[in-house]
Each structure stands twice: as structure tokens, then as C-alpha cells.
């Protein structure tokens, strides 16, 4: 068997094990009145569908953990793809304002009383694509994508998006404000089984497609011209992957708002451990990113003394210092 396949399998096995452990933790712990449940009690609740634990663990926590894993996977993968396509280790859908643009679309959808799917999702996708286009337009001009230009345009577009979001919220007079605010900050608490299923149907095919093109991302990292000279259809693959990624990120924004910096922290960590081959990194990001968000969500559920906070708060608290550290080191 090819050595790449062996590495993919070995790395995936490690990351799946890690994800499984974190998911079990996510099932066993929570903020609800029942307090910390031991592993044994969780297993026990299996056989007793009428107990309170069964409801809490399998009807509330289980879909939430699954969704957190998928959203984490999608966001890390989003960061990985952006970094490869823009050949910039600091690129990420949140930092570049793609998430913010999608959020504007989603808020507009909510204010227009559209249904979450397809109405709000479609507007979010439009918003995400719109900002992506804007950032690329601002940063390219006639030259190549420069590191600084890309980040600066991203920061500008991102803060513009924040302003628009604040504007939309401040002109809203009704009771939806609290919900919008909580959702916006990356809240994973609102899902059940049907949401988990919908997210799976949307996200899993994207994961497969990106994995399929992972070697093209390797070649693109050597530069557009070198990729072209090795037979890669650079234009098609770049546009295709950017659209797929923006679609994926918009879908997560629709569901749980702005979960920041996951796409920066996880790809970096995994690159440091497993190297730069994207055929290995894509599955590692899917399982590792999933595990990371499940863990962050667990912290968000258990850290506050009363109630819970959005998982996006935790990811931002961890991610922003990491970003500054990386920016400092890359200089």
C-alpha cells in the first residue's frame, strides 16, 4: 500500500480516537440540573429510555455534540482550504470577513421572517460569497495576493460587516434581539436530531469533495505557475474550492453564528504535528477540528456557574491570542 494511504489511515485513526473520547466527555458532562454524570450512569441510561438522563443525554446532548463536531470540522477545513488557496498561513474565513458577510445575510433573513432553510441559508451564502469577492477584489488589483494586502482587506471588510450587523440589530425593536445576539456569538445549544441530520446532509459531501482535491491543494501551494505546469486546472480548482468552502462556512454561520478562529488554530496545530501534505491534513482537520469544537462547547456549557455561554466565546478567547502569536512569529 502506498505510504500516503498508510499515513492518512494512521493519522485519521489517532484523530478519530481523540474525537471519540471528547464526544464521550461531551455526552457525560453538562450544565443541566443533573450535574456531572459519570460514564457508568451514561451507559446505564441506554437501557432506560424513560429516564431523565436518557432524555438529557440522547435527545439534547447527543445531537448537540454531533453538530459541534461537524461545525468544528467545517470551520477548520475552511481555514485549511483558504490558507492553501491564498498561500497565506493566516487566511481564515472568519478573519477575512466571510463569516461576517454570511451573518449579515442570515440576520436579514431572520428579520424578513424567512425559514432557516432554504431562505436564511441562501441569504447567508450570498452574503459569504459577496464578502469573499469583495476581499479578493480589494487585495488583488494587478499584483499577486500579498500577505498584508489580503489580511488588511479582510480586517476592513470584517469590521464593516460588524458595523452592518450592529446597525441591523439596533434598528430591530422586538424580542428577537436577544436570540440574534446569542446566536451570533456562536451558540450550539438550539439543535435537535433533525438539525443534526440537515447539517450532515449539507456538510459531509463538502468534506468528501475537498478531500478528493487535497492533492491539488498541495500543488497549488508551490505557486500558481508551478501547479499549472504540473497539469492542475488552477482556475477551476481555485474557484470551485472557494465556493464550496464559503458554502460550508455560510451553512455553519446560519446554524450557530460566528464561531471565530477555529480555522486558524486547528490547521496550524495539525500542520506543526503532521506536516504539510493536505491529503493527510484534510482528514486530520475534519476529526481534529470536530474534537476541538466539541471540547470548546463542553467548556462553554460547564464553565459558567449558572446557565451556559456560546461556544464562540471560548474559541475567540483561545484563538485571538494564537493569531497574534502566529502573526508575531511569521514576521
Amino acid at each position, binding site marked *: 500500500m*502506498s505510504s*500516503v*494511504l498508510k499515513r492518512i489511515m494512521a493519522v485519521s485513526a489517532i484523530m478519530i480516537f481523540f474525537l471519540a473520547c471528547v464526544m464521550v466527555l461531551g455526552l457525560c458532562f453538562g450544565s443541566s440540573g443533573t450535574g456531572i454524570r459519570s460514564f457508568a450512569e451514561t451507559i446505564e441510561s441506554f437501557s432506560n429510555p424513560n429516564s431523565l438522563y436518557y432524555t438529557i443525554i440522547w435527545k439534547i446532548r447527543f445531537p448537540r455534540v454531533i453538530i459541534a463536531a461537524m461545525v468544528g470540522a467545517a470551520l477548520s477545513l475552511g481555514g485549511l482550504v483558504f490558507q492553501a488557496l491564498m*498561500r497565506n*498561513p493566516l487566511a481564515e474565513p472568519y478573519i477575512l470577513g466571510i463569516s461576517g458577510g454570511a451573518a449579515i445575510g442570515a440576520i436579514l433573513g431572520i428579520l424578513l421572517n424567512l425559514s432557516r432553510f432554504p431562505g436564511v441559508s441562501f441569504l447567508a451564502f450570498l452574503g459569504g460569497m459577496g464578502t469573499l469577492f469583495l476581499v479578493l477584489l480589494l487585495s488583488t488589483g*494587478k499584483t499577486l495576493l500579498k500577505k498584508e494586502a489580503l489580511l488588511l482587506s479582510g480586517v476592513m471588510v470584517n469590521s464593516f460587516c460588524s458595523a452592518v450587523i450592529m446597525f441591523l440589530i439596533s434598528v430591530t425593536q422586538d424580542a428577537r434581539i436577544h436570540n440574534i445576539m446569542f446566536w451570533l456569538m456562536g451558540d450550539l445549544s438550539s439543535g435537535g436530531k433533525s438539525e443534526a441530520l440537515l447539517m450532515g446532509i449539507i456538510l459531509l459531501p463538502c468534506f468528501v469533495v475537498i478531500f*478528493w*482535491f*487535497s*492533492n*491539488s491543494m*498541495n*500543488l497549488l*501551494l*508551490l*505557486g500558481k*505557475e*508551478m501547479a*499549472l*505546469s*504540473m*497539469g*492542475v*486546472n488552477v482556475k477551476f480548482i481555485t474557484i470551485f474550492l472557494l465556493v464550496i468552502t464559503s458554502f460550508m462556512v455560510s451553512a455553519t454561520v446560519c446554524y450557530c453564528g460566528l464561531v471565530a478562529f477555529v480555522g486558524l488554530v486547528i490547521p496550524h496545530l495539525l500542520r506543526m504535528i503532521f*506536516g*504539510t*501534505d493536505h*491529503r493527510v491534513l484534510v482528514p486530520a482537520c475534519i476529526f481534529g477540528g470536530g474534537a476541538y469544537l466539541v471540547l470548546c462547547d463542553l467548556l462553554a456549557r460547564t464553565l459558567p456557574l449558572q446557565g451556559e455561554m456560546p461556544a464562540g466565546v471560548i474559541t475567540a478567547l483561545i484563538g485571538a491570542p494564537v493569531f497574534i502569536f502566529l502573526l508575531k512569529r511569521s514576521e
Partner: protein
Amino acid sequence: MMDEVSVCAKNISYAYDGVSVLSNLSFTVNNGEFFIVIGPNGSGKTTLMKIIAGLLKPRIGKLEIKGQSIKKYKRKILARKIAFVPQQIPTDFPFVVEDVVLFGRSPHLGTFGLASVADISHLKKAMKFTEISDLARRRLNQLSGGECQRVFIARAICQNPDIIVLDEPTASLDIAHQLRIMDMMEKMKQEKNITVIMVSHDVNLAAMYADTLMLINRGQQVRVGPPGAVLTYKTLEAVYGCPLLVDGNPLDKLPRVTPVPGRYIKKMPGR
């Protein structure tokens, strides 16, 4: 027979945003020929390499690779005929040397790029040829300029092309590394019958290795032919705009070009 010709260009021209960079170049490169393009900075050498490698499309004119118009090639098929080594090599993302060289096999593989045993043997041979076998597990960002250049040449060889196009592979290398790269190119041409097309900023080095030299200036073709016919002081002075001496080098009497510092000009009234 057409299949003795690697590259045949007829009246090719190119412009960036309406500014003409190359105009009316016509030349032929035969199989297994060492073809070196020289010329002052900004004369369009890099653009020409990119056009031959299929990275840019000539606006006007015909370009045939192995007897077939370059427009008719699919990307992947073209990549099996021509490999390209750019001037600037990206090292931002620290790939492992072995992986980079193996990327050269991708035109022969599927989208996912899974390498077979035969591909690994291509990899081993290419690394041995460029003397980087002991660097296999190192990362790109840990290598010196010369080592890095050899890694990307190995990647090009691994592509198993008929033609290799290089854009100033010896720029920013010291004399020993320049010679090493040039010797490698010569050996490649002799042992594998690969056509080597490259840009060089070093006229003397170019003269010693090239079968055919092409001198271009401001996008115009000045002269094409064997080094002795191209490197005359009249032509060179006109193109480079500075005083030069041309004589034979002590090794094989191929042209040697010596730039003349200003302080000698007045002492040479006879020129």
C-alpha cells in the same frame, strides 16, 4: 521529420495590459538541444519561458510543441511533455523534500496523486541524479538556495518530460553551485536526451554550455545561433549599451565576454 523538433515558434508576440513585451519571435529548438536565452533585464526572457511552458498564451503567432500546436494540448498531457522550474521558489509552507519531488509525478497520476512503486523508482532516480538523496526527509525551509534549486530540478525530472524549461536557475547562486547546476543540465541532455531551454543572466556561462544561444532585447529577437555567431562585441555592445571585450576562453576558445570598466576606455583608442 517533425518529431526531431521540440519547440517551434513562429512570429510569437505577447503583451501585458497592452504593453508589448515580446514581438515577432521565431525560432526552432531540436530534440536534445541545450537552448539558452540571454538578454538585458526586462527584455522579456521570463515571459518567453512562461509562453514555452504553456503558462501564458501568445497573443499572436504559432507555437508548436513536439509537432503539435500548444493550444491543442490538454494541461495534463502538456505537463508530461514540458516541465517548468520558476525563478522564485516558494518555501512558505514547509513541505518535505521527498514529497515535493514526488509531486512531479502528478501529471501521470489521478487527482488524488497516489504514487505506485514505479513512481517511487522515478523519485529515487531523480533524487540521485540531482544529488539530493541525503536531503530526502528535510523540509524546504531548512535548505540553502542551491539545495532548494536542485530539489525543484529533481521535481521537474520526476515529471519525466521531453523538455525542461528553467527561468534563471543559477541566479543568486555562487560559482560552484552555478557550475553544478549547469553540468547537471548538460548531463541530462546527454544521458536522457531531454531538451533544455533556459534563461541565463551570465553570458559566459551560457556560451560554454549552449548549443544554441538566443539574444533578445526589448522583446525583439536580436540573433539566434551557435555561441560564436551570437556573441560578437558589436552585437553585445549595441544590446547591453556598455563597452565589452570578446575573446576566446582558454579552455575551448568559445566566446568570453569581459565588461570594460570606465577607467580603461580612454586607453583603448584603437577599438
